[in-house]
């Protein structure tokens, strides 16, 4: 039995090493990198992470990466676009380093939920302009669902449907 136990132990070690080697870490290279519920820009933004955040790659699906990371002690999973990440460690947030604001992740603060930024609202007020027209435009754009867009591209054989 001893050889068997030894083999099992070696196998477990090998599996462990393989898993460790497979786990790929990447870092966000842009600030306020959106983390989405699905692989596509029209999927809901579930979080937003600042530059230099380490993410663990769970899977690569085309140009999108399914990732996980820790946020306040809780694991978060989602999708990020490959153009937003780097395979090498990215330094700290420039804004933070210079004493500016930080881009704290807050799902409730996503563009879809928030409307115009306060600065834009204040600008409009100072000029006696109506910001609601742009607010409504943003709402309209954000109301487009991945399913609607997929139907649109399939019908026209454009976008992802053109590449199939």
């Amino acid at each position, binding site marked *: 039995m001893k050889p068997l136990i030894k083999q099992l132990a070696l196998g477990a070690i090998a599996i462990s090493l393989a898993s460790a080697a497979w786990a790929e870490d990447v870092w966000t290279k842009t*600030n306020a990198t959106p983390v989405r519920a699905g692989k596509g*820009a029209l999927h809901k933004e579930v979080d937003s992470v600042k530059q230099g955040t380490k993410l663990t790659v769970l899977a690569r699906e085309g140009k999108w990466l399914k990732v996980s990371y820790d946020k306040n002690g809780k694991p978060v999973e989602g999708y990020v676009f490959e153009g937003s990440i780097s395979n090498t460690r990215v330094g700290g947030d420039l804004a933070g380093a210079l004493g500016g604001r930080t881009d704290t992740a807050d799902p409730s603060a996503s563009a879809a939920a928030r409307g115009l930024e306060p600065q834009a609202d204040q600008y409009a007020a100072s000029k006696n302009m109506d910001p609601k027209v*742009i607010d409504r435009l943003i709402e309209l754009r954000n109301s487009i669902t991945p399913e*609607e867009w997929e139907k649109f*591209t399939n019908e026209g054989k*454009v976008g992802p449907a*053109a590449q199939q």
Partner: protein
Amino acid sequence: MKGSAINMTTTVKTLAIAALLLPLGCKAVEAVGGAIGGPAGHAVKAAAKGGDALQMNEKDEKPLGEAVSVALADRYGLSQDQQLTRYVNLVGLTIASVSNKPDGNWVFGVLDTQDVNAFAGPGGYIYLTRGLLDLIQNEAELAGVLAHEIAHVINKDGLHQVKGAKGKAALVEATQADERAAQFTQVADLGVDVITRGGYSQAQEGKADTDAVPLLIAAGYNPNAYVALLQRMQSRQSSGGGVMSTHPAGADRIQRIQAKIPPGTKGQTLPERFGRYAKK
């Protein structure tokens, strides 16, 4: 924002108006970035001093893009045709999806004016006019316009424009202001002012054109439709008014685009679908 080379106004007056608006978006982005806060201000100042082109924080670009959008909507009005606006967004998102920035904050709007123009604003806000839509004959032509404007945003052409001497002086002034809100307004106004007097270089316009071609091909649209639109615009220019001095001559521009299209390239044009939404 930038009034792209797509400008093709039917009268001298509209050309003048277009000239004022063309660069508005991108330049304003940088300027506002400086006003929004310390980091962005440093970044813009560094760029103005001739340093490397700095990456604008997208969260800084967004409020600027919104502010410029509000100003544009106030000037022209936004189309109330929700189906048309939704359609333009679907086409724009299709182009953006094959770009190197599919996850950008892309928003597309239609300005309710018969001027013929398109603008690439800060933070991914892109507008085209009802007048331009009236010239367009199919979805591939619309995609060509949007691809050109998307390329301007991705290339951060506005950031490079802000390196001009006027921009430097104004940005320094803006970053010395006390109130952040006052800074934002000051810089947004500056950005609009700079944009209304400037324009993209011929090199920037040319690059946006040539960058648009692979986007169109990747998205499955026929890039020759974009050429056809520009030829139509050139023809109207020849018979109607002047040509914007800040933009490449039509024939040269068209030739450069044609040179980027591989022989035999085909793709969707979708005139029927375009007609359903835009030719009511």
